[in-house]
């Protein structure tokens, strides 16, 4: 039964050695080791968190980019559309103006033509009157020489005039 009776000397040494071991190890080994482990775990956690955050930020950035691009595209479209509208308007305006101007010119030309024709007609009338007076004078002169021929002449003149 010797085996089951604790030896006082061994008990003493065990208490001393284990106590010292506990004290030294906790102070100089366990404390720094557990601290380092904790630190590293925190680091890893932080790195993972950071990666997650970066990923989200990247996604957000990409979305922003997409949005920006879409906006730019929309703006470009708007500008193009505006430019086209302006161009169309300018063209339409100039066409209207040109038409109006043309019309105006034509109208004016027509008016001028009218005036000219009237002037021409007046001239022709005047010529005719002069001619008629000349003819009448000649006839009148002939009538004075021969009555018969006078009559014939009037007759032929009248016939001529009628023909005219």
């Amino acid at each position, binding site marked *: 039964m*010797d*085996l089951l009776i604790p*030896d*006082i*000397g061994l008990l003493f040494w065990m208490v001393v*050695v284990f106590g010292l*071991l506990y004290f030294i190890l906790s102070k100089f080994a366990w404390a720094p080791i*557990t601290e*380092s482990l904790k630190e590293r775990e925190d*680091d890893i956690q932080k790195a993972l968190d950071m990666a997650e955050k970066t990923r989200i930020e990247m996604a957000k950035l990409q979305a922003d980019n997409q949005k920006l691009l879409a906006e730019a595209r929309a703006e470009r479209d708007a500008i193009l559309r505006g430019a086209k509208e302006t161009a169309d308007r300018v063209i339409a305006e100039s066409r209207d103006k040109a038409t109006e101007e043309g019309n105006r010119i034509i109208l004016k030309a027509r008016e001028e033509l009218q005036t000219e024709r009237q002037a021409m007609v007046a001239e022709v009338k005047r010529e005719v009157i002069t001619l008629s007076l000349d003819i009448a004078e000649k006839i009148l002169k002939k009538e004075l020489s021969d009555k018969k021929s006078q009559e014939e002449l009037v007759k032929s003149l009248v016939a001529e005039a009628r023909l005219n």
Partner: protein
Amino acid sequence: MSRFLIRKAFLSIVLFLSTLAAVTAQHDEHHDHGATGEKKKFNVGDMIMHHIKDDHGWEFAHGLTLPLPVILYTQDKGLDVFSSSHFAHEANYNGYVKEHNKIYRAGANGEADKTIKVYDFSITKNVASLLLSAALLLLVFFSVRKGYEKNRGKAPKGLQSFLEPVILFVRDEIAKPNIGPKYAKYLPFLLTLFFFILFNNLLGLLPGGANLTGNIAITMTLAVITFLIVNLSGNKHYWAHLFKPTGVPVALLPIMIPVEIVGVFMKPFSLMVRLFANITAGHIIILSLLGLIFIANDLGGSGMGWGVSPLIIVFSLFMNLIELLVAFLQAFIFTLLTSMYIGSAIEDSHEADHGH
């Protein structure tokens, strides 16, 4: 399933053989007492006890003994320090006699005088092994700590990366789940406990190693420290549970309270016996197996001794592997139970609501 069966079969064979060895050893002992003179027969029991128990001087092999300092204190003579090798040469040295591994004061006739109390603080084989393991622990964990300082912010290397999973295992699998959020305060003790038991279990498996963790004084010290830590950190729920269990009829209290109080002492006691018995039993089995060779030698001549050796070697190799597992297992169990006891002592009153 089949692997489990094979393991069970192996275990039963080993158990059977070890029982056989014990029986044979006893038989042998009886024989020894009966026989007179002749050639001294091999005694397995003595051999095993010699290996398991403590000794002044560290015997690595027959005739190769490292002398260790003997430190004695008696009230009248005071402190006496001398080498254990003196007892190998003479029975009575400096007024002391060694008898059955115990040192007594020599009486007038040269016989041991057992009336005078001798306090033996010798650096025995176990104390030397204890000091060696302490030095080893310090060496290993200072090197590990240096690894953490050197590889700060880098991956662990060498010894550090070998022991880190074990440290993390103690922290994450033993301390954290059983103690709860306040585990950090007890972690240094649990780590010291775990590695102390593990290192000494493994050192004990080495040839010539001391049976330190299979010594009742060692396991008793560990158990008493656990007992003190558990009961000194017990909160009011713990004590209330002991003396005023909720939901127990008043008539049952005279039974319940003594049972609970016995339980308080039973827990460390079971820790003490479990480690001691497991490690000592392991040593006894291996030594018995090896002893079988010499028993065969005695019974059937040297041919028989050589004949059974291969089989015995296979079995003792197998047992050594089992012991390797047990070395880890017992360190784990002792630490696990300690943390569970601490956990139950500092737990908030959740436990009281259970079972209703």
